[in-house]
């Protein structure tokens, strides 16, 4: 899952570094992820995992790290199953 998330970040995150090479706890905002880019990342993750991000997880912290994104997606995938 983390590889998929990193690929989405690489395609849509417009970050200063390659997200495939950062620690999963690294602060993505400090590495160049903007609030606007996080919207694209969210939409692409919805496509990738066939999920929808509900309002309650639309927080800054959700997209703060690869780890955080993975946790939220795992929870959404389980809920959808």
């Amino acid at each position: 899952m983390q590889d998929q998330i990193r690929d989405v970040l690489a395609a849509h995150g417009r970050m200063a570094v390659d997200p495939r090479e950062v620690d999963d706890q690294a602060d993505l905002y400090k590495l160049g992820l903007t609030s606007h880019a996080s919207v694209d990342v969210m939409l692409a993750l919805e496509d990738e995992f066939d999920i929808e991000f509900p309002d309650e997880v639309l927080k800054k912290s959700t997209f703060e790290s690869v780890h955080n994104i993975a946790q939220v997606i795992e929870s959404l995938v389980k809920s959808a199953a």
Partner: protein
Amino acid sequence: MINVPDEVDGHRVRVGCDVVDIEDVQGSLAAFGDRYLRKVFTATEISDCQGRNRVHGLAARFAAKEAVIKAFAAPDMPFPLREIEVTRDGPLPLLRLSGSLAERAQHQGWLSSSLSLSHADCHAMAVVVVVCGPAVDDPMCAVDSAGAGGR
């Protein structure tokens, strides 16, 4: 050295600002189209952004939403973007909140807001200033509830 207070005559003042790259919004429209529009903007906002400056208008409204989010100063709060709406009174932009964010603004004691938008060829920006009365039992902002400044 002094700590500059964030209150004026007992009213806390909140401010937020943001700048958005026009190309980013163009890219989002190209990549995600209506899904992007429906996730971020209300029907009124989409309708208000037409014609030659459509993308600039959308970018300015996105910047306004981010500016409002910053004014809340509650980073771990959910922020459904469509609950922050930019409307117009003639040429003047106005802020309208709905849903959970309207409720949170009430808890924080938001009394009035003033919004300003601008754009150039490459970027759009927004600034919002909010004047607050006493916070009303906001569980997310214990400091506000206590009426004291600082964190």
